[in-house]
């Protein structure tokens, strides 16, 4: 029996070796550098408590992530609710409307938002021509722009786990509640919402951890003025060559994400978050 298993273990080996040599090792090195450069010790981590700029970046990131997660959950829930209760034929189209943005390049989407929102962009031009405003609005290269772009990126990620948990709700329960005279609002608040809670938590965890380390969209739509941790880390390494500080923040980021996952794995099955592969 044992010897038979050896063949199956051999199948796992290439992926395991590749992953260890070219994924885990570079990341382990990041964690190590944060304790050794510029001098061995916890000096870099001390900056978490003493440096105002480090604290500002963390607070900005947390604020944007909380806002993004709430909005993505709200919009995602509305969309998933509509899809879950749609007829079979309509459902296909609605799902396509979620999947298409999910797979379109993040750069293309950020570029599209710049086209729409910049000073001489399509939105400002349209509003000026309609006479609604006389001065162009500052819609991008600030926190507002970042949030518009990030929520746009995250809504599909919120919809998928939400939809999976809503599809598990037995439609006969809703019909029964209606038959017993419940209003639409009561059916939603007392039956549908509680039953969809596992999906809501899973979607929240997924969107939050994706938002924490997001680089491209905040970098393009923030215009270098509003810094989130990922861009800040890149800046430390590429422009300021402060490896200690950059890797310290990277380590904090990884720990924050793993801690979030660990806490919520007690509340919700992580399989819901990462699909059946988890």
């Amino acid at each position, binding site marked *: 029996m044992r010897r038979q298993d050896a063949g199956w273990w051999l199948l796992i080996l290439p992926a395991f070796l590749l992953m260890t040599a070219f994924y885990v090792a570079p990341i382990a090195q990041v964690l190590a550098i944060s304790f050794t450069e510029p001098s061995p010790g916890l000096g870099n981590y001390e900056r978490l408590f003493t440096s105002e700029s480090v604290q500002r970046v963390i607070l900005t990131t947390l604020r944007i992530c909380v806002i993004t997660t709430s909005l993505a959950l709200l919009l995602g829930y509305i969309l998933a609710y509509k899809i879950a209760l749609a007829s079979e034929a309509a459902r296909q189209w609605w799902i396509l409307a979620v999947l298409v943005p999910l797979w379109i390049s993040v750069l293309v989407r950020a570029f*599209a938002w710049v086209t729409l929102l910049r000073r001489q962009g399509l939105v400002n031009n349209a509003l000026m021509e309609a006479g609604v405003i006389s001065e162009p609005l500052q819609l991008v290269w600030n926190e507002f722009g970042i949030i518009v772009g990030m929520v746009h990126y995250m809504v599909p990620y919120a919809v998928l786990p939400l939809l999976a948990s809503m599809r598990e709700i037995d439609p006969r329960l809703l019909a029964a509640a209606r038959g017993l005279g419940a209003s639409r609002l009561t059916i939603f608040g007392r039956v549908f919402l509680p039953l969809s809670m596992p999906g809501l938590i899973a979607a929240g965890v997924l969107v939050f951890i994706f938002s924490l380390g997001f680089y491209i969209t905040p970098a393009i739509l923030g215009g270098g003025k509003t810094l989130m941790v990922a861009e800040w880390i890149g800046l430390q390494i590429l422009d300021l060559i402060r490896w200690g500080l950059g890797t310290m923040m990277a380590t904090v980021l990884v720990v924050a994400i793993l801690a979030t996952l660990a806490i919520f794995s007690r509340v919700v099955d992580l399989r819901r978050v990462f699909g059946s592969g988890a």
Partner: protein
Amino acid sequence: MDHAHRPGPWISAAAWAVAIYLLVPITIVIPVSLTDQRFLSLPQEALSLRHYATVLGSPEWLNSIWQSFLIAVASTAIAVVAGTLCAIGCWRLSRKSTELIRALMLLPIIIPSIVYAIGLYRYFANLDLLDRFLGVALAHGVTGIPYVVITVSTALAAFDPRLEQAARGMGASLSQTLRWVILPRIAPGIVSGAIFAFIHSWDELVIVLFIASRDVFTLPRRIWDGINENLDPAMAAVAVLLVVFTLLLLLLDLALRKRRDA
């Protein structure tokens, strides 16, 4: 009479608004790419294909497209071979330790690419892999493994393990069982995984920003520079070409799924 519970008019309207929010930015690049003006705008007097001509006539853009394509093909091959075999091994052995290995394979989705990118920047400098085709293909291949592991594991979940046992019972070797029994059954899952791994590499920017500079200049890297330096309508033409390409891959995946479910 329709007894199904349907959302009310307000929620339906809100759902439409969300769908428009999701789709408008992607569709707006189409008219912008056809503008007759020299700056980013909607077409004023006529539609024009000149910005497409600019892109498709530029050796820099074509070179980047070609490089991205080659890297995506190489990294997809790495991800598909390693990911498929790993998913099969984990599925067949199915115990605590293989669950851990599967969790390990998902790390690239969970850990932000900026953390991996700065680590790789330093790591590849020692291995002399910076700004090399092989380096980028390896990085994209390894980070593409999770997509293959997920889709193949899903396909395997629907596979009857007794088929494998029967094949082995009748004296088939492991490689025969793999080739004639398991792989044909999970082929649609493997193709799905390959498509996702391909798109992952094709779109990847953060890692490339750190480990490539001059010799390897992928398409996302060129778009990134374009967005940061000169916002001209040629960028919109590139965006449309990318959207069309991604849509074709997505439709291919949906068609394959339909055939599998049928």
